């Protein structure tokens, strides 16, 4: 059989997908064990036990200075920044994307501006944001929003702009005005695309979040990673990175599930 036609069963897909991950974990464990055999106080490749002890401390022992449980306080602070930044970007993407995609005068007015902002590397704006908005929460949230919004706006605008001309004509012959076409024809068809755009924006959003926290912060997942780096605390860094990965995967799965559930017509489901 050609490889191109070789479709795996669900169980086989699970085995095939799990194998490389398991392989990497085993390689890591072998290397860590070897290093610990040579030097029991090795910090570079901590064993699972060491990571567990370090994280258990951050999970249960309050920080002497602030009184927070460090792990949960970091997670909450980071998720809040990420949520606010992505939320603002999503709102802009929806409103501006619909207007730019559907209304030619708005497209002529705003499209060059959005394109211009989109080509600026957002990290290059970080100093500007810190100077203009201070080192607090605002600058971090704005960095995330400004970093992901232009791409999302352009994606939604392009999607709305590529709706079949026939649909728009049809709506006009049904007596719909511009607002009704945006609200009833363009908006519902942009929603599944918006959720996909958020999924794709999650990656860059995390990058901007960790960058902002690394440069100036006193709490957050990125802040903690860059703080303990000074002590070579791989036993904290590795679990934190794994936790970030898990959060990102959960968000991705949740967004996909919402899209399938709310917009069955866009996924060929519902039959």
């Amino acid at each position, binding site marked *: 059989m050609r490889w191109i036609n070789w479709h795996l069963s669900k169980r086989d897909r699970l085995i095939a997908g799990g194998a490389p991950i398991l392989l990497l974990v085993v390689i890591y464990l072998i290397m860590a064990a070897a290093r610990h055999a040579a030097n029991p106080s090795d910090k570079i490749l901590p064993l699972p036990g060491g990571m567990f002890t370090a994280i258990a401390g951050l999970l249960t022992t309050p920080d002497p200075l602030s009184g927070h449980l460090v792990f949960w306080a970091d997670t909450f602070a980071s998720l809040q920044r990420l949520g606010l930044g992505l939320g603002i970007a999503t709102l802009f993407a929806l409103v501006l994307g619909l207007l730019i995609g559907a209304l030619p005068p708005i497209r002529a007015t705003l499209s060059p501006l959005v394109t211009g902002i989109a080509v600026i590397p957002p990290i290059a704006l970080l100093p500007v944001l810190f100077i203009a908005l201070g080192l607090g929460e605002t600058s971090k949230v704005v960095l995330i929003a400004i970093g992901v919004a232009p791409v999302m706006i352009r994606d939604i605008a392009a999607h709305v702009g590529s709706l*079949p001309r026939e649909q728009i004509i049809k709506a006009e012959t049904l007596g719909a005005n511009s607002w*009704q076409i945006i609200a009833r024809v363009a908006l519902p068809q942009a929603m599944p695309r918006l959720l996909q755009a958020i999924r794709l924006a999650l990656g860059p959003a995390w990058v901007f979040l960790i960058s902002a926290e690394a440069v100036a912060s006193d709490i957050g997942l990125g802040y903690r990673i860059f703080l303990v780096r000074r002590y070579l605390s791989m036993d904290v860094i590795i679990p934190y990175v794994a936790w970030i990965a898990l959060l990102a995967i959960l968000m991705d799965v949740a967004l996909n599930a919402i899209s399938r559930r709310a917009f069955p*017509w866009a996924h060929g489901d519902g039959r």
Partner: protein
Amino acid sequence: MSTLLSLKNVWVEYGDKVVLEKVNLEVSEGAFLSIIGPSGAGKSSLLRLILGQEAPTRGTILLDGQPLKPECGPDRGVVFQRYSVFPHMTVLGNVTFGLECPAAPFAARLFGTARRKAEAEATAMLEAVGLGDSLNLYPAQMSGGMQQRLAIAQALIKRPRILLLDEPFGALDPGIRADMHGLITRLWRDYALTVVMVTHDIKEAFTLGTRVLALDKRRHDPHAPHRYGATAVYDLPLRGPPVPAAEPETQHPDPVAATN
């Protein structure tokens, strides 16, 4: 029969490419006009003119004696070959939308009793095209023929002065196409419609139409083929508009009569 639509000396040019030249056309109320012609002869351009999607480069178009605005409006319904229905609305939603637009300019939706009334009217229309059992399906769950039935119901709910069909049955298989011919003939008679249909299928044009218009280029310059546009080369009246009740079935050849 009074003239509903008239085109006077209409030209369509894109840059220096002439698509239609010197088109004069009078369509009387209740007519079923079939437009045929080779590819690139401006059939779709003519339909877009009547639809209001484009303005003629020269000439005037009158609907009910009034100059036609170059914008689509609810007095002209349309069914395209594809993409005529909204994929994100159910069958019922697709048809109800046409009733919601004029009634709710800001909310873009109807609620309560007004909604139920609109849905009842839409349901009646859907039953007339044979989709009474499919109210809650999405278009992607239906066959091409059912989607075209839906598109026709969607257009007719607005009681348009003219129904424009742009190769509406071109993508359907022959059996379904014969069913659709029966349906459109019945609706044309029941609702006293005026229909303008563009088609590639000459048999279909003569089967359905009361009049067949053939577009083609009269002149051809081999060195500049784009400089001459197409115009009406044949205009064949076949039969008058249907007289209610007294219309004998024999006037409609087989595929139509069989399904009526």
